[in-house]
């Protein structure tokens, strides 16, 4: 689960990490008021709040006259509402949003901070160790990705102990890496340990401060902030769950999430309902090998409730890209008869206007087949993935 920058900064502040003074604004006039409230004089930073990175180098659709991105420095108060108006209710496209971009409905106004040094700090779970791992680099902003490709030695990776703060030795390693002397130790220790506590206490999967500013007094300040949380642990953090911004999520993905299922969309025209990530990956690979591609994949693994499965199948059936549905279930925990009931409920509600091929194997398979046969729905059965996809493609070609 992702949250906005301004929410992430509120969280960091609660954990004692310095962030610039700032406030959120929904209209240009409000942006100006917030700016005046923060400080009598500029400059200020104006930051579009969307849950995607590379905002600085992004551009607003239809605003080609002023090719400026979603992060702007404003020096004069008289320009503030004008700049905010260019962002609000406009669509920002960045390297991470895809071509459709994201609508900006709020901007964050912040005091501009003069700092001595800037560096990149990331914290993430390196599953190959596995350990919470700190990433440090003096390459900041979007350039960090370029060097990740070509010069990995410019990023320091430091696995952290799960139950202990950073050691003095680790702090020294970081300072040496950034070519800073030991007079910076206290500031770094304070900042990075607070970041570590935030990460662990809140079940974060990733925290990224890009960049961290080092101030003249050698204290550190988070100038940007992204936090991503583990969905599976949100039962422990109802306050964070309330921060979720539904407008940032694709409505079909959100619906699937509410059912407890994973859903992803792609560029093709075959809708897949499977149980298990591996089965989804395999289906997509096989579809590709036959010259087609998937429109979406719904993973109903662990589903035990007919209504939720029906809701899931409806998401696939109502995706306008879908011209054929593949249902490939190898039931263990998930019993095949639940899938059959789910298919029938879903088709009763939204109809069945595209071909559907069903392959069922495992727990209660025969019962499921009997249920589907009795329904008289025009469903084609298959015995394995390969055959199912062949039959579906054949049906789709007939429909053309």
């Amino acid at each position: 689960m992702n949250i906005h920058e301004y929410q992430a900064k509120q969280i960091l502040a609660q954990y004692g990490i310095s962030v610039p003074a700032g406030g959120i604004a929904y209209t240009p006039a409000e942006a100006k008021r917030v700016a005046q409230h923060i400080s009598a004089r500029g400059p200020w930073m104006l930051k579009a709040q969307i849950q995607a990175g590379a905002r600085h180098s992004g551009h607003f659709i239809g605003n080609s006259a002023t090719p400026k991105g979603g992060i702007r420095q404003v020096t004069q108060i008289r320009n503030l509402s004008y700049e905010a108006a260019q962002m609000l209710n406009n669509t920002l496209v960045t390297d991470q949003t895809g071509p459709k971009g994201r609508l900006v409905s709020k901007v964050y106004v912040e005091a501009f901070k003069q700092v001595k040094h800037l560096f990149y700090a990331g914290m993430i779970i390196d599953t190959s160790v596995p350990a919470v791992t700190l990433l440090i680099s003096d390459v900041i902003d979007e350039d960090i990705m370029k060097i990740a490709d070509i010069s990995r030695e410019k990023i320091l990776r430091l696995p952290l102990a799960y139950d202990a703060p950073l050691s003095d030795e680790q702090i020294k390693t970081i300072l040496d890496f950034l070519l800073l002397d030991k007079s910076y130790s206290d500031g770094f220790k304070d900042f990075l340990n607070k970041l570590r506590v935030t990460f662990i206490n809140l079940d974060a999967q990733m925290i990224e401060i890009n960049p961290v500013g080092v101030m003249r007094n050698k204290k550190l300040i988070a100038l940007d902030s992204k936090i991503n949380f583990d969905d599976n642990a949100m039962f422990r953090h109802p306050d964070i769950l309330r921060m979720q911004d539904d407008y940032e999520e694709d409505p079909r993905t959100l619906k699937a999430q509410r059912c407890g299922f994973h859903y992803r969309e792609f560029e093709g025209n075959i809708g897949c309902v499977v149980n298990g990530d591996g089965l989804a990956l395999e289906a997509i690979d096989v579809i590709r090998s036959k010259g087609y591609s998937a429109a979406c994949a719904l993973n109903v693994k662990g589903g035990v409730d007919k209504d939720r499965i029906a809701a899931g199948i409806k998401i696939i059936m109502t995706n306008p890209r879908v011209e054929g549905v593949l249902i490939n279930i190898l039931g263990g925990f998930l019993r095949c008869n639940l899938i059959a009931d789910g298919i029938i409920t879903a088709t009763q509600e939204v109809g069945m206007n595209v071909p559907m091929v069903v392959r069922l194997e495992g727990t209660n398979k025969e019962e499921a087949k009997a249920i589907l046969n009795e329904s008289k729905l025009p469903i084609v059965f298959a015995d394995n993935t390969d055959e199912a996809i062949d039959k579906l493609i054949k049906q789709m070609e007939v429909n053309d």
Partner: protein
Amino acid sequence: MSVLANKNTRVLVQGITGIQASFHVKRSMDNGTNVVAGTSPQFSEKEHLGVPVFATVQEVVKNMPIDASVLFVPARAVKQAVREAVEAKIKLIVSIAQGVPVHDMLEIKAMLNGSETLMIGPNTPGLITPDEARLGIFPENIHHKGNVGIISRASTLTYEGVIETNLAGLGQSTVIGLGDDMIVGTDYCPLLTHFMEDDETKAIVLIGKADNVYEQMAAEHYAAMTHKKPVIAFVAGETLTYSAPMGYAADIITHGLSSIQDKKKFMKQSGMIVVEQMSQIHTALAELKLL
């Protein structure tokens, strides 16, 4: 012989009284699994499915020896359940639930480190030795006793692997799902060793995924083995990459990891037979001429 569990394995079920547990444990018992006890913190009856129910694992091991524990507890209770089983020195844990918080897994890995316990899962169909022991939720009707061992990191694809071995007319010695999650209790390596030492197992099918480094570790381990049986390997995720959360950190951290092509190359170099599609496994098995 078989790997890790057979008809004599004394099995405990943690969380035995739940609806899903009851359904699947009964099937396991009907299938020959030697379930000897269960735990349930709130359950007031002393017995369920014909076996005694205790409040804690500690109490169980005071009363009877246990070789393996299957965890049917919900995801949020897995950490505590593993702690109990590890403290009771149970040799094998199989954890079924999906959705265990990743931070809990970091703590669980620390608990397992240096312990006597091997953990399979979480988010796995479990482990099955056909007709002898079903520790989990495998659809037992597709399994046949035989001599191919299966280790898989993609839960439902495991069943495809089973079907492939059936098509080759070989059946399975033991089938193990490592679990679908980013971090799992055990990787392939200790299991590969067990299968190499098992008389019944003549070949191994390994089903991997594109994310993480478990397949590279397996390849290294296999390459270094002196006593080898053939391994047929498949890696899912050719056209789809692992989805990363927003930001750069995830890309940076996964960047050093090799691509799926690299994975396959490592596996081939280690001597494994790598197939491009699941449906090629049965022909690859047939070519081994094990029958």
